[in-house]
């Protein structure tokens, strides 16, 4: 049977909606996707529910328009939510159980998995994911599959990813106003990893850097599972704000400078011209120029600081030297000139851009890195929530 999913991301810069379909056990295809600039969102948090609702309605209309072109007609009744922002936290939690009998059987594994899910969370916390890392049996850690092994105490290490419940509820409210019921919230950085990483990279050790407008998420994989993840409340908006403050420009002018002229890396000038043109904020304002060197310095210092924070964090967790497959950049920040060089310098590892190669349908997208998270959410949904007949359908109406 064909399963159909939808995912929504109410980001700081843009609101994205995508649908995907897949037959059981086959590759997922992104059937339709649309994005529009967000309003009322700062640092990945909704500050104005009405504006967020308007954004969702606009992106829905955009999807409907695209569907008309292709002849599809779907009403999106519910969607998974892609979540980021500095309130996202990932912390380890271990479930343990006593092995019944001599060897570990399926019941013991079921029991320890249940124990690992029994962590009582405060009321204001929303669970995004519980990632199973590895099993341990008595003193032996790092077991992939403990079934049939001998021992007394079975342990399961997990990473619990959470965020602030109110923020998710605000998104639920905004989407509800646009007649979309939100299903589970999913973490953007692990979603992005889902769509861009290969299994061998995950085994060798790899870092996904999801550069968003309001925050920067990262997810580090080693030995085939998610080892650690975090979000820092610094994103592309900070670069824009720094530029705006340094050169006394409007946010729109600063955004323009960032996209067209700025370079994250000081060693790779995009343009030999030493000054960047800055057109007036209104037709009556005079045009002026700003020093490219200063512009690049402002951007470089901001991002260098961000990546230093991440590097130190990885070092503290003893992960930095284990990421042999390097770093993979996703999100809108991937479009910034010189970002790859800067990440390579600051993290000291090979770097590539993360195109959502694990799904079909985005091959012709110019900045496919910025759709990595939403595509990954569809993929994650397909792997973990495969529609069963007794589930309510995601869509109000099916194809044709």
């Amino acid at each position, binding site marked *: 049977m064909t399963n159909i999913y939808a995912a929504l991301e109410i980001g700081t810069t843009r609101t994205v909606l995508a649908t995907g379909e897949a037959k059981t056990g086959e590759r997922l295809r992104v059937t339709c996707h649309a994005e529009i600039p967000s309003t009322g969102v*700062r*640092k990945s*948090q909704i*500050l104005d529910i009405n504006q967020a609702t308007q954004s969702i309605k606009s992106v829905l209309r955009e999807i409907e328009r695209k569907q008309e072109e292709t002849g599809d007609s779907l009403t999106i009744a519910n969607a998974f939510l892609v979540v980021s922002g*500095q*309130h996202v*936290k990932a912390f380890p939690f271990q479930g343990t159980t006593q092995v019944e009998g001599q060897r570990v059987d399926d019941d013991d594994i079921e029991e320890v998995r249940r124990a690992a899910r029994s962590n009582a969370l*405060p009321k*204001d*916390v929303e669970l995004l994911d519980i990632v199973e890392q590895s099993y341990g049996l008595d003193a032996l850690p790092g077991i992939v599959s403990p079934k049939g092994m001998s021992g007394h105490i079975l342990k399961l290490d997990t990473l619990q990813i959470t965020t*602030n419940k*109110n*923020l998710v*509820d*605000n998104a639920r409210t905004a989407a509800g106003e646009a007649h979309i019921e939100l299903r589970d919230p999913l973490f953007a950085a692990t979603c992005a990893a889902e769509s861009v990483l290969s299994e061998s990279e995950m085994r060798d050790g790899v870092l996904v850097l999801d550069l968003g407008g309001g925050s920067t998420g990262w997810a580090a994989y080693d030995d085939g599972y998610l080892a650690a993840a975090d979000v*820092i*409340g*610094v994103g592309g*908006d*900070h670069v*824009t*704000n*720094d530029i*705006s*403050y*340094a050169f006394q420009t409007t*946010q729109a002018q600063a955004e323009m400078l960032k996209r067209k002229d700025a370079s994250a890396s000081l060693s790779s000038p995009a343009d030999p011209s030493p000054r960047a043109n800055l057109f007036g904020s209104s037709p009556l304002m005079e045009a002026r120029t700003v*020093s490219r*060197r*200063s512009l690049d*310095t*402002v951007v470089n*210092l*901001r991002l*260098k*600081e961000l990546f230093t*924070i991440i590097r130190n964090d990885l070092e503290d967790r003893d992960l930095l030297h284990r990421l042999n497959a390097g770093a993979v950049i996703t999100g809108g920040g991937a479009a910034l000139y010189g970002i790859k060089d800067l990440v390579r310098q600051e993290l000291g590892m090979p770097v590539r851009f993360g195109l959502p190669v694990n799904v079909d349908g985005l091959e012709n997208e110019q900045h496919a890195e910025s759709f990595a998270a939403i595509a990954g959410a569809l993929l994650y949904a397909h792997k973990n929530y495969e529609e069963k007949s007794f589930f309510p359908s995601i869509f109000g109406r099916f194809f044709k």
Partner: protein
Amino acid sequence: MNDAKSSMILIGIGGAGSAAARGVSRAFGPGLRYVLADTDAATGAEGEPFVLLGGDRLAGRGSGGDIPMARLAAEDSRDAIDETLDGARLAVVVACLGGGTGTGATLAVARHLRERGIPSIVFATIPFEFEGAGRRQNATGIMSSIATEASSSIFLPLDRLVAGEDNMESAMKRAVDTLASGITLFWRMVERPGYIRLDPERVRRIVANAEGGRFAVATAQGPDRAAEVVDALSRSPLLAAGNTPARSILCGILAGEDLRLSEVGRVAEGVKAAFGRSANFDLATVNDEATFSGRLSVVVFLFESGIRKDDDVSGGSADAPRLRRQRRPRNPLAQGPQGRGRFNNVEPTINDSGVDLDTPTYLRQGVTLDA
């Protein structure tokens, strides 16, 4: 009951902050000028001075733990707050950080007071360890912003306030009681002075120029009470020295009619010896036979920076513009609103060392740009 003559006003923010302010009002008795402010309409009891924050925005149902929302709610209600501030020359703000209103609205109110030129001293508690990392992060994240906006701020980790208490409910209650009694004593020192009087304008000057603060209270009875009090204070975890030595000490001695001159001397000497002789020292006494009969209570405030010993305080009229000009970033970690731009009204991004990452990096690193 508000005493129109009082130039000092107590503002309790949020549910817990309001409870503490109410406790102060009850302990102080009539004559305390205070106002409660919360996003939850249920907080204000009949006949109490109460400001509902964010009427239209939140409809009086509380902020639901949403800090930016609470901050915006408080900003909506600036006019209503203003009406309660008529003639106030010093505001004491009490709040419990961690929740929505206590965290978000406190920052907005402190900022508003600064803009009005009213010096403020913020007493804010930091949540217990057991309340979870989220609430603690809410609290620690906003600390540097509040410290920037308020004239002086005293942050009290609840864990230190009631160390050793095992029952959660009584721990909470005791924490609020301790906070309330500290503020009550502060109030009495200023408004119900005894033989050694502390001029309210002098207090205003100290607060307006002070920065990070700490406070503790100790009480003892019996013949050795002075020595016991000094001993308890010097061991108080609340006063445990930070990296910065105290620049200004405010010491209040509260006792009945039996307060002896030698005891005043011993307390003053002991406090100076424990917290720094070079610091500016101010002493006040309260004689209240009804409340303190046989007991000796001493409240000590330490401020990390303050007016210098040789400062001229005779004038005592630090006008508002001057207050603002005197404020400068106390450390590079808390640069305050400078350069926050579009992040002005959102929750700040504060890293583990307390640096506000919303401020442009080049600015924090002091990098000069070519024109």
